[in-house]
């Protein structure tokens, strides 16, 4: 009969005691920061890829297609390893540590964030494109008939409307992103999951510690679900659009 070690369980579940261990504290911070940066860069990459995909210029379309094809068609784990180890060994880019005053961003974290962002961009491209295409073509025509260029019309007329369509799936992507950062452990990035595996290596309590680790991720995604439903509610405020699902129903919704 396995003896469940409640002491370890509570020590690492209860944040004030858990955060005394820098592996957990810094790991949690790293996971949040990595998620936010990777998602933000992913959105920007996705926007450009979406615009490239809709371009009149064929080579640009092909580049965007190849990008989306490759990064959606290969495992993120492999992309991350290729970027960090592959680029390192060939000296294409060595991912040197970045010293920023009080903190150091390791090469592993940089590579992990880069891989997460590039991968995310490929998924966001399709989301952004779907958002743009959901807008009535009459909007672009009206904007053009008023003398707007494509870029101005996109910025002022199309994207503000497409945002409402893009935000809900974007929120789901971010939920995914926070969990997916745990893959960065494979290149040695010191994020939350790395912290728990390290603690476990010392005490060997995988059952207790990994339940706690899962609960940390659950807390992150739950907090995000609340924030996301607030954001969506405020988007729908100005004009009554379809009521967005509550964060509770979102948590339990089948995806």
């Amino acid at each position, binding site marked *: 009969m396995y003896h469940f070690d409640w002491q370890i369980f509570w020590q690492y579940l209860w944040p004030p005691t858990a955060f005394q261990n820098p592996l957990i504290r810094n790991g949690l911070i790293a996971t949040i920061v990595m998620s936010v940066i990777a998602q933000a860069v992913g959105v920007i990459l996705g926007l450009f890829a979406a615009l490239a995909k809709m371009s009149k210029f064929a080579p640009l379309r092909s580049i965007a297609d190849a990008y989306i094809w490759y990064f959606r068609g290969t495992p993120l784990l492999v992309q991350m390893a290729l970027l960090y180890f592959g680029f390192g060994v060939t000296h294409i880019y060595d991912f040197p540590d970045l010293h920023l005053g009080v903190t150091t961003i390791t090469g592993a974290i940089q590579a992990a964030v880069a891989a997460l962002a590039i991968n995310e961009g490929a998924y966001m491209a399709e989301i952004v494109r779907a958002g743009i295409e959901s807008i009535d073509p*009459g909007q672009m025509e*009206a904007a*053009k008939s*008023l003398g*707007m*260029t494509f870029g101005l019309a996109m910025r*002022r007329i199309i994207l503000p*409307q497409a945002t409402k369509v893009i935000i809900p799936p974007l929120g789901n992507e971010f939920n995914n992103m926070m969990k997916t950062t745990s893959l960065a452990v494979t290149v040695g990035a010191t994020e939350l999951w790395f912290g728990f595996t390290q603690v476990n290596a010392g005490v060997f309590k995988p059952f207790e510690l990994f339940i706690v680790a899962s609960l940390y991720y659950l807390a992150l995604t739950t907090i995000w679900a609340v924030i996301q439903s607030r954001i969506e509610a405020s988007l729908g405020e100005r*004009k009554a659009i379809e009521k967005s699902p509550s964060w509770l129903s979102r948590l339990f919704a089948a995806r």
Partner: protein
Amino acid sequence: MDHGRSIPKAQTLDSNVIVKAEKVNKSFGRLHVLHDISLEVRKNEVVVIIGPSGSGKSTLLRCINHLEKIDSGHIYVNGHMIGYYEKHGKLYEDSERNIARQRAEIGMVFQRFNLFPHLTVLENIIEAPINVRKTPREQAIAEAERLLARVGLSDKRDNYPSQLSGGQQQRVAIARALAMKPSLMLFDEPTSALDPEMIGEVLDVMKELAREITMIVVSHEMGFARAAANRILFMDEGRIIEETTPEELYTNPKEERTKAFLSKILH
């Protein structure tokens, strides 16, 4: 694309000619929608285009501000070729920026209004003057308020389009187009999407407007045509079949196809 033709004769710069179309052809795939269309619209003229659906009238309108590309021929607005420039005897599509600049001089009103739903009525109207014309915001707002008063919607200035009736939306759309101070207004079936009781309010605004600005109107509103049009063009199968005055058209249509069409729309 067939633009490898000889240079057309230099345009006679008659400043009274606002629109000049020469032998315009346009196909969608194998469907030849415009067939050697030539047309001249003079300053302050109001031209109404009628014809059965699929006759090419909306396409012609959309070619005038280059929302549709033409396959051959030339269209000039205010003496400038629209959408293309000429080099060594060939025509090339103009830069996006130049096309945008030309479109800024041409107002367009759409069948389905196409107001910007994320902007208020006022914001819809000042959007292009501020961002395209670089009009100072205060001045753009003052101008927009004048236009709103003119179309009778001053009280709707802070509403969103979705809060307006179809007729009100179309009047805002007219004000939005006018805010760019265009020298030509194109109306693409402006009342076809409206409930019958709202058609009058839009036509009243258009009639008022017809006194002071050059207009090309695709519409079957014969009441409007009679009251405001200088000329009526009847189009069928991509050609201008008959060109006449409203009175002539009523009393004495020459072409069989025109007669057949009129008997359908005049009850």
